[in-house]
């Protein structure tokens, strides 16, 4: 499947002649024995773009990012990062990338400042430059107060910020962020979004994986949806949203036994397949927009189905998944992952 991604026309125009893609893959795949973690991924990310990699746990996001950042060797296909083949010349690729994984790649035995200083020195900075750079990054990631404390005293959000600061020490042109906000509190999450937006504004290419539709929506120009290691859809967040309708109406039935009657009555409104009723007599119906609400009320009245709750929601990853694949994002019990 081809999923050619590009930045918008204006951006390319603003950058002069078309450049090499920052990231390009052809039929990229990784298998572990019989398990195909990633299969036949064709991607192109132009320099300066930000692309979101959306998918549930186990969909292959981390495997894909680890292959692009040279930590994991592909078993099929090819990938180029900053124009360099990751398999043939991983050392060269590492000069252009920064990686912040789902688990902080920080040295737990050093302080925050020592971590930054060490990475700066390893990149070849002089002692003075590495110190200055460490202070600058500590300041901008709001870690100055904790700079000389052991990492065991850092919160999850602080460790993640330090991790990102380490990735950015050498100003990489391409940054991979693997679920940078998973497990963070809302405030840290928002702060992380701002950093990502600043990075992109500064011209850095970003590939960001996430399980959250709102995160992809907010940050990414383009979204690639992975399911069981394969690209199942790609496009702008708005485009994907329109593919599943737009919004989701959630109806809470007074009597859970009315589920199938209600489903029958509302089916005509749905823009994509509807889940069977959830526990507690809740039904989620993908609809085009808010104007569907009065129709829902009329149709349920007409069918004589009483309900106790009615709400309009933004679609979640689950809704997108259901629309695209006909099944929920979370694996069903008993289903192999």
């Amino acid at each position: 499947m081809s999923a050619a991604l590009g930045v918008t026309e204006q951006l390319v125009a603003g950058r002069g002649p078309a450049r090499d893609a920052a990231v390009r893959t052809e039929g990229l795949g990784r298998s572990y024995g019989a398990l195909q973690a990633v299969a036949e991924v064709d991607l192109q990310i132009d320099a300066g773009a930000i692309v979101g990699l959306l998918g549930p746990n186990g969909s292959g996001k981390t495997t894909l990012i680890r292959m692009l950042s040279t930590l994991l060797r592909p078993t099929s296909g090819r990938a180029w990062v900053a124009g360099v083949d990751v398999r043939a010349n991983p050392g060269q690729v590492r000069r252009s990338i920064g990686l912040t994984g789902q688990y902080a790649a920080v040295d737990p035995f050093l302080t925050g400042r020592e971590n930054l200083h060490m990475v700066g020195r390893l990149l070849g900075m002089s002692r003075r430059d590495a110190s200055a750079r460490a202070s600058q990054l500590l300041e901008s990631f709001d870690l100055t107060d904790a700079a000389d404390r052991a990492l065991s005293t850092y919160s999850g959000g602080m460790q993640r910020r330090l991790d990102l600061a380490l990735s950015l020490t050498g100003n990489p042109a391409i940054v991979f962020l693997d679920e940078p906000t998973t497990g963070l509190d809302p405030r840290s999450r928002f702060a992380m979004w701002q950093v990502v937006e600043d990075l992109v504004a500064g011209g850095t290419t970003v590939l960001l994986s996430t399980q959250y539709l709102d995160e992809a929506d907010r940050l990414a120009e383009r979204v690639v949806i992975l399911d069981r290691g394969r690209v199942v859809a790609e496009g702008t967040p708005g485009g994907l949203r329109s593919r599943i309708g737009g919004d989701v109406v959630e109806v809470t039935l007074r009597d859970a036994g009315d589920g199938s009657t209600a489903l029958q009555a509302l089916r005509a409104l749905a823009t994509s397949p509807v889940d069977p009723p959830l526990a507690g007599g809740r039904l989620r119906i993908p609809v085009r927009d808010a104007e569907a609400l009065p129709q829902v009320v009329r149709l349920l009245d007409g069918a004589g189905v009483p309900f106790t709750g009615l709400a309009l929601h933004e679609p979640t990853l689950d809704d997108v998944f259901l629309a695209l694949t006909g099944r929920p994002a979370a694996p069903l019990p008993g289903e192999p992952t």
Partner: protein
Amino acid sequence: MTAMPAAVPVPAGVRLRPSVWLEVTQLTGRNLRKIMREPTLVFFSLAMPVIMLTLFSQVFRSIAQTSNFPAGVSYIDYLLPAVLCTTLTQSATTSSTAIATDLESGIVDRFRSMPIHAWTVLLARNVSDVVRGTAQSLIMLLLGWAVFGFRFHGSAAQAVATLVVALPLSFALNWLFIWIGVLVRKPETTQIAGMLVTFPLMFASSAYVPIASLPAWLQVVAKVNPLSYTVDAARGFALGHPDPGALGKSLLIAAILAAVSVVGATAAYRRIDR
């Protein structure tokens, strides 16, 4: 928390001059710092040889009166050079635990996504562990001298040689254990693997008793045990009559073991991506 300002670029004028020297020194410094910050590790890695020295010097004292034992030599003078060698051997096992811990913690992912050499990460591990082992040896020596009455029989140069002669084997064994650590990648498993390798090395050797006093089958093992030659060489220097044959064999074995282990460990580290 204040709003996070822009992700700042590197200031103008900062020059990047990566070098192998910087990689090795930075990573070694980091490893040594880590050792110093684990006081329990420092304590137990010292406690073990101290207990060994205390127990062996008392339990096996009477061996000095047996016919296989060199005449006119006290057991502590015979034992201590061997304990210096076995301390370095035991110390080498912590290399595999340390590298496995790093592999688990994610910091190795950081190193592997950076433009630094694979082998400098491993060499730095080795250098820091040899430094630590040497520090342990010096403490043993001081303790043996102050508490148990150990004395060198030879010249000052021979005394220095007693300490230095075990370093090549220590270096080689560190590489072997780094290799094991990279292959195993589980800190708990590496500790068992370490015991499995070091205990036969230490006991089926000339370290604690003369080889001639061992059962016949164990003598065969002790004679192919590289540690025996290193112990003999160190003991020769300590007692003031150097053993060039043992020294030569010790160095040769260390060189071969180091060559094989360097290649194996580096290849294993590069294969982590598979």
